[in-house]
């Protein structure tokens, strides 16, 4: 019997080893390797060898790097705008679809379709829609309001005040179908009897929505917040495609990009050959992510405790 068990273990290990080998090499090892790299300098000639050991210099530089902290602020703003907007858009679509409708699956698929399309291409298309003079939006507003309108002269992406919002709108429209499917599944799981009971108690439509529907959708909302936070920290392609971090603004004596999110700033540092510094930045971002995750779980568990008390 003992032989049989050890043979089983060997078989199991054999089946699992290709995956674990890749996992260890490309997901676990880099966490440590990145830490190691963050103590090295940044060669000016893009060479990967002969990196100079600089100790904690990269971390000291981060603390004084206004651009880095600014990009974190932009990331936070990006999340603060895009997460609620995304949740509202998906929920609105789900509520519209949560009826007995002819052609429901058509609508569901049509809304979901942009989710599977390439982010870069979607970003490029939206850039051209927003573009002043020849973009689709500029053409329509010119027809409606004459040539001297904001959409035709500057364009939404040309002004530091609207650029981030314009990116968010494009991304919300691309991603709304995803949340919609999640909300729709959850909505259909709410038993009709709950609403009927509320009707008997004389609840208004709004009360039913805020007191029954929203609390029952809470797990989906939490999920969307968590993925939204990770998405904001990961945001790169949409910024690269649509704004390249611009338009530039001067803040406290430094020129910063009004849509330069953390992911984009990290790429910029990496792209200009500051490998050690980029590694240090990714480590800082990792720590921040873990902090946020920890905070979210605290809040979620505290809310659960409060629910339980009621």
């Amino acid at each position: 019997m003992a032989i049989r068990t050890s043979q089983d273990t060997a078989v199991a290990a054999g089946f699992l080893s290709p995956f674990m080998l890749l996992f260890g090499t490309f997901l676990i090892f880099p966490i440590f390797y990145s830490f190691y790299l963050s103590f090295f300098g940044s060669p000016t000639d893009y060479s990967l060898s002969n990196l100079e050991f600089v100790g904690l210099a990269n971390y000291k530089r981060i603390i004084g790097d206004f651009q880095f902290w600014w990009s974190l602020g932009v990331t936070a703003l990006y999340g603060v705008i895009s997460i609620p907007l995304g949740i509202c858009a998906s929920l609105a679509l789900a509520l519209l679809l949560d009826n007995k409708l002819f052609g429901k699956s058509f609508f569901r698929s049509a809304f979901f379709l942009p989710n599977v399309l390439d982010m870069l291409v979607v970003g490029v298309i939206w850039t051209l829609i927003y573009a002043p003079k020849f973009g689709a939006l500029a053409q329509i507003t010119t027809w409606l309001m004459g040539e001297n309108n904001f959409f035709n002269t500057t364009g939404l992406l040309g002004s530091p005040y609207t650029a981030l919002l314009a990116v968010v709108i494009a991304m919300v429209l691309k991603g709304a179908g995803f949340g919609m499917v999640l909300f729709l599944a959850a909505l259909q799981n709410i038993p009709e009897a709950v609403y009927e009971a509320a009707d008997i108690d004389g609840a208004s439509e709004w009360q039913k929505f805020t007191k029954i529907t929203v609390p029952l959708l809470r797990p989906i909302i939490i999920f969307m917040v968590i993925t939204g936070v990770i998405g904001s920290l990961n945001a790169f392609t949409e910024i690269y495609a649509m704004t390249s971090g611009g338009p530039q603004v001067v803040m406290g004596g430094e020129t910063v990009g009004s849509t330069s999110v953390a992911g984009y700033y990290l790429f910029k540092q990496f792209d200009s050959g500051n490998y050690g510094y980029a590694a240090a930045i990714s480590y800082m971002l990792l720590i921040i992510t873990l902090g946020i995750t920890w905070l979210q779980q605290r809040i979620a568990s505290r809310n659960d405790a409060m629910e339980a008390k009621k």
Partner: protein
Amino acid sequence: MSKDMHPGRVFAFMILLAIMITMSYVISGQLFKFGAMVISAFTTGEGAESAMQAGELMHKLTPVHNGLAVIVAIVMTICVVQRFLRTKNEMRGAFLKRMFLYEALAVGVVVVLFPFFWMLCTSFKPSGQELVISKTNPFDIVPSEPTLDNFRRVLKTDAASVAAGALDPIENKKNFGTYFLNSLLVATTAAFLVTLFASMGAYVFSKKELPYKQQMFMLLLATMMIPGMMFMVPQFFMVCKMGLFGTKWAMFLPHLASVFGIFMLKQFMDTIPDSLIEAAQIDGASEWQVFRVVIVPLALPIILTLFLLTFLFHWSNFLWQLIVTNFENPLSITLPVGLALFRGQYTSELGLIMSASCFSIVPIAVLFLFAQRYFIEGMTQGAVKE
């Protein structure tokens, strides 16, 4: 009858009906015109004169596509009015609500899908005429003088490129056909390897005994919380140190360990009864045979889902492919990277950029049409589990 008529309700119905007629006419008109445009573009040749010919052909087809749009609008109007009249008076409020619902949904679909329709239309516009829109109706975005020249130019099969290609074949191969094949190769290989390793791994996590199995699984799940951006620098160094920079392997190797895939497959394999495996073992099946004959066929829908999702991920894995591409070897460029490069070169040539975009968008949209269930269920799987 007239006594029961609610004037407010009739008025609301009139407004909703007017909106419906306008929308159905404009939308179906654009779609039919798009069909006519594709036909005219494909039946004519290259160059500005052919675009004129295609324009004439389209002009001849105008009664057809306009007529079809009018028919659609009329048929819909008749159906809706008939339904409204037949509906009992007390049900008419609900009827109007449903009508509003459909119209709101239709507006939503138009807003969400407009960018892609615009992309398709612009890609057929002759060079230099992307800016020309109908002065009377800015919602008429389908070109009236269509041409396939943009596609010829991004594929480098137009006369000028072919002539240049005779002198410099490499230059001629730097086209979106090549990029498309590269992307296809990278995404298919990656998807195949990911599904193979993930299903083998998930089998162990679901059905086999192994010391520290639970701890390993928790470790896997923990890494899902880390944004992928954080791995960029170390993974790039590793790939370079392995001497893989610029190769196709580099484009997907670091992303082969799909934790999401393991998670998804394990969830499914947990529902396969152990008795099936035992039955196969009693019949004398080897371990590999159990996996291949029992597990894989039963988990095939979910494996297929993972395959499609992984394919999609690598199809649009722009950032990673950008940094590991060796630009001295332009024939190894993949679609997203190619598009980013291309856009830098032809900033204002909308038609060219849009037709290049089609190479990435259209195949995936078609794939989605045929396998939408797998895509939607697969992508939303992890979330619905609490």
